[in-house]
């Protein structure tokens, strides 16, 4: 339950961002990210629908490789 997933921000509307990962779109709350200046195209790590931290695209890529393996193993 403590595992966050990296997603890319496509659109920001107040505290809600439409985010994408691997073609899947989700509304993500940015309410916990008020100390960060987030823009469209930035990457965030999302946990239970909330962005918990900003990351670089490179880091997002590495994390996704791991999750792909996890999903394949399930």
């Amino acid at each position, binding site marked *: 339950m403590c595992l966050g997933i990296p997603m890319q921000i496509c659109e920001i509307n107040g505290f809600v961002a439409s985010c994408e990962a691997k073609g899947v779109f989700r509304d993500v709350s940015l*309410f916990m990210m008020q100390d960060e200046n987030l823009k469209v195209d930035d990457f965030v*790590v999302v946990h239970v629908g909330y962005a*918990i931290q900003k990351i670089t695209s490179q880091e997002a890529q590495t994390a996704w490789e791991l999750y792909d393996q996890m999903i394949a193993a399930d």
Partner: protein
Amino acid sequence: MTVTASQWLDRIRALPLESHVKIMNVCGGHERSITMAGLRSALPGNIELIPGPGCPVCICPEEDVYEAIQLALNENIILVAFGDMLRVPVNVRKSDTRTLAEAKARGADIRPIASPVEAVKIAKEHPEIPVVFFAAGFETTTAPVAAMLVEGVPANLFLLLSGRLTWPAVAMLLESGEAGFNALIAPGHVATVMGPEEWQFVVDAHNMPAAVAGFEPESLLAAMYSVLRQLTDGRYFLDNCYPALVREGGNRSARRQLEEAFVVEDANWRGVGSIANSGYIIADKYKAHDARRKYPNYASEARKRAGEMPPGCDCAGVVLGKIYPNECRLYGKACVPRNPIGPCMVSDEGACRIWWANGLRETAKPKI
């Protein structure tokens, strides 16, 4: 230059490690990565990796799950909970309702959710029905629940909170004098939210190496190398091996929201008992949304029996890192993911389930 997993393994093998070392992790995500990547068998034989208290579903008090089941069965409410919680069994007779999933099958309106945002949405869609959100989880999950409250929720949304902090469980183990490990890998996403500083006590108060790790094998191996190297060098510190996410002070707005919405208190852990300063309760400011205040008759003091796991289940030993999952008599026999006896076989973060799902079928203690 990035160091690959096999390079980290080479570095670990090259360390002049003389004694047997036990490294504990306290995160179900870490245990999953370690088991999936087969890190136990890849490491030298004198390094043991112990899964510790890393599963919030496993340690959610039995009386809280019971309370949620009874509320859902007896009140005209909608109960929402993270999906994992629906299959956690309580200790009642087989003919009684043992899980939220069974309560749902018996007609209670229980809905699994994946985000606090969904709880708000359901409450808005049914303004005339009280919606109770049974929220169990460690800091990474409890912080979004706090954010949800602070942002504002409908009047008909109530929180049955079972949030827990991870570091106090490690502090309790270390203070017991029988910790059974020599080094700690601290949880990456908990530290992302709360800051790595929370784990400094492991070094300062207990003279033990510690490193925060992410979830890729490279990050876990870097953290293992760090703590092993600290042991061989005899110089201990808290290393941050997950700098991509873990920053000084953590996520400050998340921490502010946690502080505003909740208060930290001593709390019960299933199978373990009370741990000092390890639980969140709802702050007075948000008491109108406290399910325990709205429905006070469902919390039963009589059910608070510390050490209460289902009969025959050794989850308490597994959670505290005293035994490995396959040392439980029921592992893979009476207890499998399809028919779990204890919470450690229910949750994706439970060590029993992780080991079983990754094909660990032998019931003897593995050679590690």
